[in-house]
């Protein structure tokens, strides 16, 4: 036979498309997916039907109208839905910039599934949880070293929860000094994650947002004009979502300190600077990491994740409680912290992810973490060179400068020349088994696209991604209708979006859908 021809680039792809009904449509009256343990005769004889003793107002009259399926049908339905989803395990997942979609090592998931992790109750006697307390304590020591901070709380459930914990600590700090009322403003930048602004607002602060200067750096003069005796804190990302490192960061920190405010570092994504520069060394008072970004725990379709809040010595009294302590022989939980902000979430954090992050650090060590950062940055600078070779793409700001771990690109030129928007290109990328994300709102960079290749991808991976991107960009110039009618190779086709914003038509549950379409 003739040798099989070489594969085309980008590859031919079609996503699984099972045309799966909504689970209620699979219901078969009387079917059971799992049986529950029967109450023994001895119990039943002793107590009778206890539920029947509920007063009328509390007694459910009809069983909930859940679907009824045999076990294989539940499994098959969800297995099919899973195939209609792209995770890091399947695609070259460099398109979700700011989110650090790196490889989540399987061994860590496997270790966390141990009953000695999964089946621990948070109130067990401390003598029975010395192992997991040691893991939590050890991870804190690692993150202290990585950030330079005095202590790190692992309690927040994710990145935004860690930002909120930091806002709460900022508030408690100023209140402890009698300046709680006076300091009612938080300053952030437009290229910092929107949760910095949103969490500050929830905590009662007025939010001031600094925009970039002509070179894309946060506007230092605007910032200096904004700080005052009303400033509680600066919440800032660095490098920002543009991938540009704010080289004047110490001037920002000094300016906020000069007026008595605190400096808070959003290090949700610290992937490009591990072992390169540390929060405390730049003078920050607080920082946070997302363990599901830099520290590799899987993203889980949007959680469970884990956040870690680091603080300087002055902020230690305000940490969420309890903290994990070690006296040289025993690990323990300490809840007696009178100035603590209290609970950010139940118990101690998303502990299985704390274990995974610890295991990831222990698989790499100090040299490995630095290798992570350096390769992530190398991959990014390679990717940007390739992307900028594509017609219509550009990289706004800081001309001629390198970037750290990600880039916010612009398709402005392509849009001007073809009328195709970034959001349409994004949908077409799905046809190649790939994803990209535009940007948070508002779109300060016009027609944005944010890519972050992390350390997990090879040159061939990056080349394949760029090949798909190039093809889509070429289509914008040559056959724009292919883009306008995309997706073509996805699970589904263009969705009617109108009902999502119309109260008469939107349906957040099947029961609402049935009522509104009856």
């Amino acid at each position, binding site marked *: 036979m003739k040798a099989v021809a070489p594969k085309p680039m980008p590859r031919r792809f079609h996503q699984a498309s099972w045309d799966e009904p909504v689970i209620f449509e699979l219901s078969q009256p009387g079917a059971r997916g799992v049986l529950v343990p029967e109450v023994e005769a001895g119990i039943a004889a002793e107590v009778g039907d206890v539920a029947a003793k509920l007063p009328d107002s509390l007694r459910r009259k009809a069983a909930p109208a859940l679907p009824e399926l045999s076990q294989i049908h539940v499994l098959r339905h969800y297995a099919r839905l899973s195939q*209609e989803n792209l995770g890091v395990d399947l695609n070259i997942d460099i398109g979700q910039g700011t989110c650090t979609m790196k490889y989540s090592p399987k061994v860590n998931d496997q270790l966390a599934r141990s009953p000695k992790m999964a089946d*621990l109750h948070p109130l067990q006697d401390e003598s029975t949880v010395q192992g997991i307390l040691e893991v939590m304590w050890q991870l804190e020591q690692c993150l202290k070293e990585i950030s330079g901070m005095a202590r790190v709380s692992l309690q927040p459930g994710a990145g935004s929860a860690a930002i909120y914990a930091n806002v709460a600590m900022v508030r408690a700090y100023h209140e402890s000094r009698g300046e709680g009322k006076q300091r009612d403003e938080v300053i952030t930048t437009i290229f910092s994650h929107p949760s910095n602004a949103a969490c500050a607002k*929830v905590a009662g602060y007025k939010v001031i947002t600094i925009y970039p200067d002509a070179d894309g750096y946060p506007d230092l003069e605007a910032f200096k004009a904004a700080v005052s005796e009303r400033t509680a804190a600066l919440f800032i990302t660095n490098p920002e979502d543009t991938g540009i490192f704010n080289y004047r960061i110490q001037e920002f920190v000094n300016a906020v300190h000069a007026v008595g405010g605190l400096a808070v570092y959003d290090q949700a994504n610290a992937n490009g600077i591990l072992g*390169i520069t540390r929060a405390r060394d730049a003078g920050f008072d607080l920082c946070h990491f997302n363990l599901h970004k830099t520290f590799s725990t899987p993203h889980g379709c949007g959680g469970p994740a884990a956040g870690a809040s680091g603080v300087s010595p002055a902020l230690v009294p305000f940490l969420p409680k309890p903290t994990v302590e070690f006296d040289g022989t025993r690990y323990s939980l300490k809840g007696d912290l009178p100035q603590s902000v209290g609970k950010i979430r139940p118990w101690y954090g998303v502990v299985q992810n704390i274990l995974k992050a610890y295991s990831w650090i222990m698989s790499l060590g100090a040299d490995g973490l630095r290798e992570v950062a350096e390769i992530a940055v190398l991959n990014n600078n390679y990717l940007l060179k390739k992307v900028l070779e594509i017609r219509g793409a550009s990289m706004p700001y800081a001309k001629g400068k390198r970037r750290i771990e990600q880039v916010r690109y612009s398709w402005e030129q392509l849009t001007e020349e073809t009328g195709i928007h970034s959001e349409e290109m994004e949908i077409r990328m799905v046809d190649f088994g790939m994803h990209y994300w535009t940007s948070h709102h508002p779109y300060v960079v016009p027609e944005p696209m944010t890519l972050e290749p992390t350390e997990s991808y090879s040159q061939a991976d990056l080349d394949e991604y760029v090949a798909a991107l190039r093809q889509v960009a070429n289509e914008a110039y040559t056959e724009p209708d292919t883009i306008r009618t995309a997706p073509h190779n996805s699970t589904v086709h263009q969705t009617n979006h109108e009902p999502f914003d119309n109260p008469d038509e939107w349906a*957040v549950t099947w029961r609402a859908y049935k009522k509104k379409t009856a």
Partner: protein
Amino acid sequence: MTKPNKPIVYPYIPNSVPAAKEAMLKAVNAQSVEAFYADIPEAIRFKGKLNLPEPFLSEAGLVRHIEGLLSKNTSAREMLSFLGAGCYQHHVPAVCDEINSRGEFLTAYAGDPYEDHGRFQALFEYESMMGELLNMDVVNVPNYDGFQAAATALLMASRITGRGEALICGTIGADKLSKIRDYVRPHLDVVLLEYAPESGLMSLGGLKAKISEKTAAVFFENPSYLGFLETQAAEIAQIAHENGALCVVYVDPISLGVVNPPVEYGGDIACGDIQPLGMHMWYGGGHGGFMATRDDPKFVLEFPSRLFGVSSTRVEGEYGFGDVAYERTSFAVREEGKEWVGTASALWGITAGVYLALMGPQGMVEIGQGIMQRAEYALRKLKQVPGLKIRFDGIHFKEFVVDFNGTGQMVESIHKKLLEKGIFGGKDLSAEFPGLGQCALYAVTEIHSQADIDRLAATLQEVLK
């Protein structure tokens, strides 16, 4: 020890292969990676090497290290556990773990509906099945946990009513109250309501005395933190409504096969934690929060969370999914959005959906009935142990308060003795509710057999001698 001069090829880092790294550097015309860090000033550069433990570079070595640590734990499975207080040892069906371990779900994140159709449909189905359990038309994609759900439900009530006070039944647990107080502080004053010392039920007289035109919400848990059901739920809702306040009820979703959901007795916002629905305890890492309301824009537009909705596509007979009313979120409008939205507990939402689909209507009824019977049996058995009483002797779902005051011993010392016999006693309440003296909160679920409960009673009798 690693050899400093020999480059390490890291299995998780393809371009750590020296030749690959070299080729990449060459391609971008850089001598070394230093070129990329030119913007980072010398003054804040970290010098030297992070002081971290030596790594376990081989997977085998890593497994040995981590398993060595985990082996120092004793899991609740290896013991007989009656711990609850918000985190519960229910049976986790195998299919739940199978689905949430699939890489397609486990390693996905924030894709759009066209590449992550599966995630959108699975979470829409989660919302839908929770909607059936709660008899409500709107349920969020899970937020962090029940504490967050409770705090957010109260802020939603504040925004909906334009009022600034929450009345909360005083039987609430200290940790949940701590979270609520911290979170709602700029927007709501929290006032605790008295409860009857014998039954634990909310004092309706106290409620009537405290409720006013300032009250945004009356909040109670059903079952309460202390395990009994609030049988005056309908009256409480009525009093709230007569005063223009909303009734916010925190429920245990696994109770709702037998216990009426809040909307049936006047609840306006239901909230709670989905951990009982197919999540392991994970030392407290298995939580996810839900809020549920009627399908009224006045309510819907106050949710901070994602709300996935169903629609049609260009193809006949095909469902598409997307975000309902996205413009209310912080993703869309930053601090002008409702609180904030971010990564929370989506995988647990998918898992809870799998759980509810496996259990079906009959399963949820049976599990609720069986848990109530076991709890009732357990409290009757413990009552017979000399020196023990049951506090708040009403109708219980799965938890109840055991009163050890008559034993003359501290809960702590009794529980140490149980521990030696392989039993985790319930949560010691002596610090959290000092007024109760020496009491503990015991939880019983469908995993407990009659023999388990009899063993607890017999062991208590033995250690109390």
